């Protein structure tokens, strides 16, 4: 069984669909917390600044606490989420933990050992499957198909998708591109400074559609590529166009021109290329 194969992705997606069906949660905007509770798990959000908690944690525990955003204990049947996690990101985190509980082999393994007891590769594969599950829970394939059929390839479609699913823009963009049958790629960029202190945008990650991958067999935009402040991408972030979709044509350095729909939510610059 290849974890990253299409066959396995379909298997995981079926598990998410079965769960939604079981709890009659077939529309957009389902609450992962409802599903968590209907599956017999407790759900809680913890606040590290809470007096009852802060008084009991040592400095070294505090250090690890800052790195943890969500957790599941299979034996204790509880899902915990950091209350400080951005509200838009919580549904994906909740659905991800629900995935570990629902995928039978995850539940069996996590009943006897922690994820951190596993080797890196195994953990990565389990995280991948839990992400596929979470994505399918928030953005079910049948509903996604109707989005692809009825809405144009545009940044506005992804924004609409995030609203429908009550999920983060980041997760909506990833899901949209994953199954889109058109050639498209979404870039996630952050405002940073280069070695000389010039502000610009640095590529954090990218995800492309299967059709894009087929046409461009290698990465057109390099990992961590830096775009200086005058580049079209950067203009969006530095021209005060917050929460506005900017549409233009860009050249990413390979003399290939793309349509770009770029959007800055104040944290991340998202660019849809096609």
């Amino acid at each position, binding site marked *: *069984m290849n974890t990253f194969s299409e066959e396995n992705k379909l298997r995981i997606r079926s598990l998410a669909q079965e769960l939604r069906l079981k709890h009659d949660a077939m529309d957009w905007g389902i609450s992962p917390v409802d599903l968590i509770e209907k599956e017999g798990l407790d759900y809680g959000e913890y606040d590290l600044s*809470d007096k*009852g*908690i802060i008084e009991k944690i040592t400095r070294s525990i505090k250090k690890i606490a800052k790195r*943890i955003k969500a*957790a*599941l204990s299979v034996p204790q049947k509880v899902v915990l989420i950091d209350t400080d996690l951005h509200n838009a990101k919580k549904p994906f985190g909740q659905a991800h933990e629900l995935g570990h509980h629902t995928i039978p082999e995850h539940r069996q393994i996590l009943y006897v050992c922690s994820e951190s*007891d596993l080797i890196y590769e195994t953990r990565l594969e389990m995280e991948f499957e839990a992400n596929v599950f979470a994505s399918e829970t928030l953005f079910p394939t049948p509903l996604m198909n109707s989005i692809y059929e009825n809405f144009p390839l545009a940044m506005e479609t992804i924004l609409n998708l995030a609203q429908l699913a009550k999920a983060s823009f980041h997760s909506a963009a990833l899901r949209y591109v994953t199954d889109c049958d058109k050639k498209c790629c979404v870039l996630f960029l952050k405002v940073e400074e280069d070695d000389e202190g010039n502000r610009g945008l640095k590529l954090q990650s990218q995800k492309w559609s299967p059709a894009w991958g087929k046409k461009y067999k290698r990465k057109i935009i390099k990992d961590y590529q830096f775009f200086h402040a005058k580049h079209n991408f950067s203009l969006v972030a530095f021209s005060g166009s917050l929460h506005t979709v900017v549409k233009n044509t860009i050249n990413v350095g390979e003399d290939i021109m793309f349509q770009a729909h770029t959007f800055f939510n104040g944290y991340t610059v998202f660019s849809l290329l096609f």
Partner: protein
Amino acid sequence: MKKNIFSKLFSRELPEGPVEAGQTLGMTPESVLERYFANRNAILSLLRIYSNLSLSDVAKELGISDTKLEEIEKSDERVPFQLVPKIAEVFNVDLKALLVLLGHAQSGDRDDKYREFSALPIAAQYSGPDLTKQEKVDLEELFKIILAEMKSREGENEI
């Protein structure tokens, strides 16, 4: 060492008598073990022989073809993690020990308490590099504190 592995797997000592399959070839249990431990997944054929199950029996239980199982048994590649719980079930062995033997989990070291498995299994999404031994212990402690606090709040609300 190998006796320990078997103790962990079967929760009992390695049977004293020679392994049936090895005996037919005039081998001692030790030499059978040596041979079968030549690659990572050899433990699977050994477990199969001990359980008196055929390749087809096990393959059927695992939902894979006989050829695939044979390929897995002879291979040094890691068995897909998805199959490990089912394998533990088929052979009625300890899942934790099997995860270690098949290379999916770090082996516990009795001299180093932090390398033992977590007492409270947790799946956690965390940012940054892998957790250190101490961080694993801290994470477990944090989880316990949060759970206790949540329970005490629930208690207060009920009152």
